[in-house]
């Protein structure tokens, strides 16, 4: 509710002048303007899942121990990629560095496949 009011206030005051002054925005769709400004104003937006998946896959592929050819969306860290607990912990750290937020230890246990990592990150508002 508060977000809606804030948004309306914002739109009423700034959106029209911004559209006139900034030629870039005139061409862009209204939903793009809405999305971009909204995520700056209100922290806690969620990342797009496909984008998260690409970034997670890239992150895991960069891990030296891993055969990049095996890094597919449904790859299981232990069974498919041959990672043990120390490796998994390192992957979690690499994901934390990539997405800029800390994954609690009691959740880290459950992230043992690419898909699970993607689901967790995409549903976490702090992920950048």
């Amino acid at each position, binding site marked *: 509710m508060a977000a809606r009011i804030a948004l309306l206030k914002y739109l009423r005051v700034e959106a029209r002048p911004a559209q006139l002054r900034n030629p870039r925005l005139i061409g862009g769709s209204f939903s793009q303007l809405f999305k971009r400004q909204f995520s700056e104003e209100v922290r806690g937006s969620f990342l797009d899942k496909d984008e998260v998946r690409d970034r997670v896959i890239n992150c895991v592929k960069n891990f030296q121990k891993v055969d990049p050819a095996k890094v597919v969306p449904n790859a299981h860290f232990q069974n498919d990629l041959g990672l043990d*607990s120390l490796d998994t912990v*390192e992957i979690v750290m690499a994901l934390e560095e990539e997405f800029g937020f800390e994954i609690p230890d009691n959740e880290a246990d459950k992230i043992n496949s690419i898909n699970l990592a993607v689901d967790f990150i995409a549903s976490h508002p702090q992920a950048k």
Partner: protein
Amino acid sequence: MRRGFYRMRLNCCSDNKFFSSSTPLTPIPLPSPKETHLWYVIPSEVKGESLLNKYMEILSPCEKENVLSMRGDELWKSALLARTLVRTTIARYQINSSISPRSLKFRKSIHGKPEVDWQQGDHCEPPPLHFNISHTSSLVACGVTVNSPIGVDVETKQRTVKHNVLTLARRYFCDPELEVLNAIKDPYLQHQEFMKLWTLKEAYVKALGRGFSGAPFKTFRIRFGSAIGVSSHLSRTSSAEASEISVDLLDDSSDLTCNWQFMLLELAGSHYAAICTEKDVTNEGNREVPMKLRVWKTIPFVEDRCVSGTEAVRILCGSR
């Protein structure tokens, strides 16, 4: 019927090195309450398709499926050897005549820790046998105790990590442990100390049986010291073998951490192995008896060798 015949023919025609000379499992008495048994196998020393096929035969259908779903030869082999090791090891203890490596059934505790699912035998109480496995691609180990939960972790000594060990320690270890690591200036020694702490912490979590999230590494501290409580790290301790390893909880839980004892070994010159069990304080009027350890190197159905007291097993820290 046809399958059995085919197998019989294969026996006669194939290389007899492994089949006809394969030894039955050496029966072993159960460990006493003060004893821990550790069995290990080196995957690179296990060769021969017929032997690996024999191992596959003792697995349950579910285990077979799991092993076959692993992608990569090393992974597949160490997964097969892990199941083979646990089945053959437990079967050695001759709990009753109906138990064979293949007949054993397993289940998970409510917290997900694997345990034996003893079947209803005639007049047999399920034995209080506990086990825990750990495997790397180069060594698979299985620890066995009676009356005490056990956790085992093995890691390659020279194992590389992507992050700086202090970064890992800052994120996952507690402050006192980080301080100990920080104080070590030699990067090689620092790396070794990190690996030792890691295996000990893993062994503790596995002994508890609640998984990594059930006992996050930051919530407990592994401490090396003599009985008078002097903290030091292993490289500075001159009498490392006499040095004790203990665990302290850093939160307000009611777990009795003084009940846990540890042992840290170097196995086959190449691996660290940490074992965590509960102390046996029964008998002898509360006097704590140090953990006695016996270690065997095995290639199931081929050879077993007791290696305690040899070069293959170097006790780095903890009870003798």
